[in-house]
């Protein structure tokens, strides 16, 4: 999985920032994408490209259970969010709905990955290669159930 980084260097990026409450009435996925990250970055939808990654701090996706948040990001083209930690409902929604990968990274990776860097992520080796900086970081492996649901392609395709 290869892509470029859009970095938000802060903690607690909440779902009101990812997709503001006023748009909760919308359920068209492309329309939602056009409002992604509007709470902190109104230009997001013009700069995001298919296959990009978001990199951010801890407790990413905290706040409401709105699945609109991972939907808006994934339909913008985001393939994975790399964060120090995730809020639980956002994390679950990403995985069970097969929208994008929530990848936990460590402080070192967080510090070193810069906006615009090109990354190559390998799920087999749990490695994140920073092509731009020629560095390699480890991602936190997914727990067993999460790994299985991701491999199946979402909760509905997973056979318990």
């Amino acid at each position, binding site marked *: 999985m290869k892509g470029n980084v859009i970095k938000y260097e802060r903690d*607690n990026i*909440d779902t*009101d*920032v990812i997709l*503001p*409450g*006023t748009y*909760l*009435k*919308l*359920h068209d996925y492309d329309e939602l994408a056009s409002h992604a990250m509007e*709470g*902190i970055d109104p230009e997001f939808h013009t700069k995001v490209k298919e296959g990009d990654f978001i990199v951010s701090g*801890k*407790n990413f996706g*905290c*706040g*409401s*259970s*709105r*699945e*609109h948040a*991972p939907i808006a990001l994934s339909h913008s083209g985001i393939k994975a969010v790399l964060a120090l*930690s995730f*809020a*639980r*409902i956002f994390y*679950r*929604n990403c995985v*069970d*709905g097969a929208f994008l990968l929530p990848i936990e990274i460590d402080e070192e990776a967080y510090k070193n990955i810069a906006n615009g860097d090109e990354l190559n992520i390998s799920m087999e080796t749990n490695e994140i290669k920073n092509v731009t900086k020629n560095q390699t970081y480890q991602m936190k492996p997914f*727990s*067993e*159930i999460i790994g299985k649901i991701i491999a199946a392609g*979402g*909760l*509905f395709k997973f056979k*318990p």
Partner: protein
Amino acid sequence: MNITEKILARASGKERLSPDDVVFVNVDKVMLHDVSGPGVIKVFEKLKNQGINVEKLWDSSKVWIAEDHFVPSAEKVSAENIVKLSNFSKKYGIEKHFKYGLGQYGICHTLSHEEALVLPGEVYVGGDSHTNTTGALGAFACGLGHTDIAYVLLNGKIWFKVPETLLFKLNGKLPEHVMAKDLILKIIGDIGTDGGAYKTMQFAGNGIDEMSIDERLTLTNMTTEAGAKNGIIEPDQKIVDHLASRGATEFTQIKGDSDADYSKTFEYEASEMEPIVAKPFSPENIAIVREAPTIELDKAYIGSCTGAKLEDLEAAAKILKGKKVKIRTEVLPAAISIYKKAIEKGFIQIFLDAGATVGPPTCGACCGAHMGVLAKGEICISTTNRNFPGRMGHVESQTYLASPLVTAASAVTGKITDPRDLN
């Protein structure tokens, strides 16, 4: 095992469960509202295209629907969502649909306890993050997204990782000027907005035994703000009486074993508690009210599942009786049943005499949707639960979270005010 582990063990048919075990649990109750409902309908459409049968729910008698976030509809899209929701109920034979303008309705988490929709010992999931609220009845109550709720509606079960439990003990009865809201803000200030992440937050101690159900619900409601999977309180006679008065008498109370494990215990002395506010832009950003910044407020908001239960309105009425508000003040009871009781008890008259506006039950401005959202630069004091950027309106508006007592006192002075300092 503690209460959460026992409920999950019962619901998954296991003898014993420990934190980190992953289980599929049978669900007892499911809730949808006018945001998550259309979201689930969208998931159903996707599934249908993939050849998955979505013609029948696993058990429509266990499902209920609330119209709360975007009622009364301010524009066409919201109005159409309500129509979609009604068609969904009709198609799947969901009888418990609480419609705006048709008898009892209100905010989903308020209905769950007002209407005794969830019982002690049950596994209850809702398409809303504050589903945690209902854990105050002694149930495992947890919020999920649309895909997960769709899965439950079709299969009657869902996976959970058994959470570890943080135990918060309150010693003694809270002083008169301090409410559950102050306690939970203090706790979130102490452990942070991810301090309860993936965990259970359980409340206990003689201070909790003394506490009313309305107040307990404020505690469990805001466990979501600490990232918790669920908030829970062991059921007692008050819960049994509350449910019995609403016709629910058949349930099994589950309580934790005396040797149950808790990963950490926190103790709070009620007598040391003070009124607290959470400053913008995080519920963990707390300050003692008497040390809060002296800024000019634009609005006071008394509403939401957190802060518009009957006792919240009673607290605000106690302050506002015979006084005038100095800033725009909006009061929105959390359900029609509460609205009616507030009229009977004279609270609504007090609010109107004070100069406040009283609106219908709705999530409305709590989530920045409609009915009183904040303009750029406006500052609000609110009995709600979140104050992220843009939560209640413009990204550059600000919200201070506070108890109904503090919010009402601040409405009178136009500044953040400790109820003790109001003459």
